[in-house]
């Protein structure tokens, strides 16, 4: 019993540690002062300031647009990539492609940013929204592949045989069986790509140039100049947004988990005979 309490205590400490900075941040967005010290009474002034800041609003819109566009395109390319990898039968080829796929997943952001900067400069692609969009698509593709591929592998060969047996052509198998089956994976991939894009700082920082800015870059620029409680207000808004995203993601995962559980049940029944 005592051990139980001790472990709970430990968990609570970790959770408090994780959340204190965020709460601290949001709390001061309501402070009347100008710094994150000495809470000086409740005000919504910083939020008003934030919503009146047209440059900031524009940046928020740009950031969301960038995330949406890049994740949509990355999802399309990544799904095709996963299908391609899944169809590859030669193990050497498959492993090589998978390793290449994962390079961007494990590379430090500065390397991705620096090498993309060289790449864009070499191809004379002007730095700005376009280059940032390309970069975000590029680093989101591997995560989409990694989210879709397990769903493809979960698919039993007999299911595809059944579809063919019942008269479907290749295109019909793809559109009526494979795509609906891997849809949860595609959604997870899209979601991950979206948050990757929203969250990215370092890569964007390298390839953004002067004209275009995302939220993270803007926060960095302002934070280097010192405390501005408008940023705290922004954090408050983003925390709510993140909360919504997490809840959304949670439901996607739940849906998948349920399916998986059912699939396992079915698989279990089969195992009995072996």
């Amino acid at each position, binding site marked *: 019993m005592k051990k139980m309490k001790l472990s709970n205590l430990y968990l609570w400490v*970790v*959770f408090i540690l994780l959340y204190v900075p965020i709460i601290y941040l949001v709390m001061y967005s309501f402070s009347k002062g100008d710094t994150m010290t000495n809470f000086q009474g409740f005000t919504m002034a910083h939020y008003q300031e934030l919503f009146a800041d047209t440059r900031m609003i524009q940046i928020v819109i740009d950031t969301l647009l960038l995330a949406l566009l890049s994740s949509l395109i990355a999802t399309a390319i990544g799904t095709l990539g996963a299908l391609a990898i899944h169809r590859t039968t030669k193990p050497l080829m498959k492993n090589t492609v998978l390793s*290449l796929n994962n390079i*961007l997943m494990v590379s430090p952001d500065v390397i991705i940013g620096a090498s993309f900067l060289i790449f864009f400069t070499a191809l004379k692609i002007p730095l700005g929204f376009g280059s940032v969009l390309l970069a975000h698509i590029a680093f989101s*593709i591997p995560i989409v592949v990694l989210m879709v591929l397990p769903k493809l592998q979960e698919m039993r060969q007999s299911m595809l045989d059944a579809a063919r047996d019942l008269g479907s052509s290749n295109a019909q198998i793809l559109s009526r069986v494979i795509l609906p089956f891997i849809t949860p994976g595609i959604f997870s991939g899209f979601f991950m790509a979206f948050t990757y894009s929203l969250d990215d700082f370092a890569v964007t920082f390298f390839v953004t140039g002067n004209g275009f800015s995302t939220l993270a870059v803007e926060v960095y620029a302002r934070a280097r100049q010192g405390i501005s409680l408008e940023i705290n207000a922004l954090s408050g808004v983003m925390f709510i947004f993140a909360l919504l995203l997490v809840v959304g993601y949670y439901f996607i995962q739940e849906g998948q988990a349920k399916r998986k559980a059912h699939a396992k049940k079915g698989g279990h029944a089969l195992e009995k005979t072996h």
Partner: protein
Amino acid sequence: MKKSSTNVAFYVPYVLWLALFVIAPLVLIIYQSFFDINGHFTLSNYATYFSSGTYILMTFNSVFYAFVITVVTLAISYPTAYLLHYTKHKQLWILLIILPTWINLLLKAYAFIGIFSQNGGINTFLSMVGIGPKQFLFTDAAFIFVASYIEIPFMILPIFNGIEELNESFVNASRDLGAKWWQTFTKVIWPLTISGVKAGVQAVFIPSLSLFMLTRLIGGNRVITLGTAIEEHFLVTMNWGMGSTIGVVLIVAMFIIMFLTGERKKKRGRRA
């Protein structure tokens, strides 16, 4: 049975991406590392890197910081993941672990500027208990603390998944065979969850080498890691050749880490 031409269509966009955004940048950064600031082919970048004490020391420091961050993160994360496994509503708990990772890293760093500042949260607290204010911001400890704070979820998630995959019967079998809790842990639980730990180490160590924004905002330019140096060379001094050289060293370090921690595992959770 028959190979259809649609197969090729699947490959095109993806292979194009592999070629343009994976292979080409990698080749380019290696290529760039052989040019000096005036665009002449040279090996001097590597010569500078390996002969100057600054770069060697910086590399050593980077690895050391990353190592400390990884160890601190692991020490906090493993027990957390282990205990989480036995909680009742673990999906909810794990969601709460993930949630902070959805707040932009810059905002979290920014929060610590406030917390660690002269009159910030920590110092107010210390003054209250009578110790008096201390300098936190722009210290090594602050950098390590904030970096660890940011990386903890990325360590917890793969370890948690590793423990989840562990079949409870193994633990019961070990106990049944007479092992004490500690023996069960060292002989059964740890070896069977080591892959999760490796994945976590990978997900923390490599990014820790390149947290230039933290070194700037929290470390106050006192801490210079490889990442900071790359950023400096690319965006401030415009010496891309030298920046690329450091990049190549970082890539090599990355492959060594990958090799040491075994097969390439996908990162669980997200990266900033």
